[in-house]
């Protein structure tokens, strides 16, 4: 047995070994917890992971299909004026409904709970220091007042069927749970949208009287991207007249 072969075999073994360690570390990191010896718990966790993976795969497939549909549509309507017009109508409608991703100028508002004041030195209601659903609703209302064309909260697009509701210590938007800090993106005329920061406005109230961390930023390089609404809009009872 010469030394070359031995070191080759041991080296290969080490490749396997550190490969296993790296994959294991990645897996554990992805789960976010240490190894549990409880089999039942592992099974449940695995079921959740599998469901998530399946959902992600299906969602990816859906997106692929949608892009395919898009290309097919443009291909088939390319040489026909009337169809191109219809296609543009559909695109415009989707933009208004919130079913397509949009980008443009606007503002980004970040609202976060107050974490600087210790509750032991705070004698008023601690709820005062937390962002509530009503605060988000008021901000969204103000944004709509100044003609924001597209609004998203933590990546959830606000559409005609969106609800903003309290769900314990988180807020539900479009049925999805989101938590602080809340990043509200709005597309519109930036100077007009910056009016939200006016003295006596709701953001001013949140900042000065509720002591929340409020940050407002004007973006005028057309790089606010607001994702599309990913849910399903059902119209079963309303009929067009």
């Amino acid at each position, binding site marked *: 047995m010469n030394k070359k072969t031995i070191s080759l075999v041991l080296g290969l073994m080490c490749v396997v070994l*550190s*490969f*296993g360690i790296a994959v294991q570390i990645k897996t554990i990191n992805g789960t976010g917890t240490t190894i549990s010896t409880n089999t039942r718990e592992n099974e449940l966790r695995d079921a959740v992971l599998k469901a998530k993976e399946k959902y992600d795969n299906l969602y990816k497939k859906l997106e692929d299909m949608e892009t395919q549909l898009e290309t097919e549509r443009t291909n088939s309507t390319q040489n026909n004026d009337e169809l191109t017009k219809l296609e543009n109508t559909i695109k415009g409608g989707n933009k208004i409904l919130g079913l397509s991703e949009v980008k443009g100028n606007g503002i980004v508002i970040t609202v976060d709970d107050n974490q600087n004041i210790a509750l032991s030195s705070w004698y008023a209601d601690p709820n005062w220091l937390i962002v509530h659903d009503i605060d988000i609703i008021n901000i969204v209302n103000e944004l709509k007042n100044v003609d924001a064309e597209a609004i998203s909260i933590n990546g959830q697009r606000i559409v005609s069927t969106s609800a903003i509701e309290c769900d314990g210590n988180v807020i539900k938007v479009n049925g999805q749970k989101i938590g602080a800090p809340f990043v509200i993106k709005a597309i519109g005329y930036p100077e007009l949208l910056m009016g939200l920061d006016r003295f006596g406005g709701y953001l001013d109230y949140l900042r000065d009287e509720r002591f929340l961390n409020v940050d407002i930023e004007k973006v005028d390089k057309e790089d606010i991207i607001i994702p599309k609404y990913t849910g399903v809009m059902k119209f079963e009872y309303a009929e067009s007249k």
Partner: protein
Amino acid sequence: MIYIAIIIGCIIGALIGINAPVIPYTYSTFLAIAVVAALDSVFGGITSVLKKNFDLVIFISGFFCNSLLSIALTYLGQKLNLDIYLAALVVFVGRMFTNLTIIRRYYIEKWTVKLEEKRKSMGQ
């Protein structure tokens, strides 16, 4: 030479592992036990090289048999709701310590002999 090969192997393996996909969580226990078996094999390999009785067939078959048995035990343990893989773990880690002792003794002895020779030559 052997240690250089081991280090290079570790680096290559880590690089492959970082880019590899994640395995399902249920199988992570099996992978962990296989990793420990591989670690044990590497230690055993180094020891046998130092003892000059390294045998390729024994080394590789030992690695596969050990990992397969420990994975089977882990599976059985999951079915019986008893952590049998702990037994395999104790054996592997225990053997790793024994092998480490042998490796350590070998190098310390070598070092002492060298030191002794140096002292003798200095004395002359």
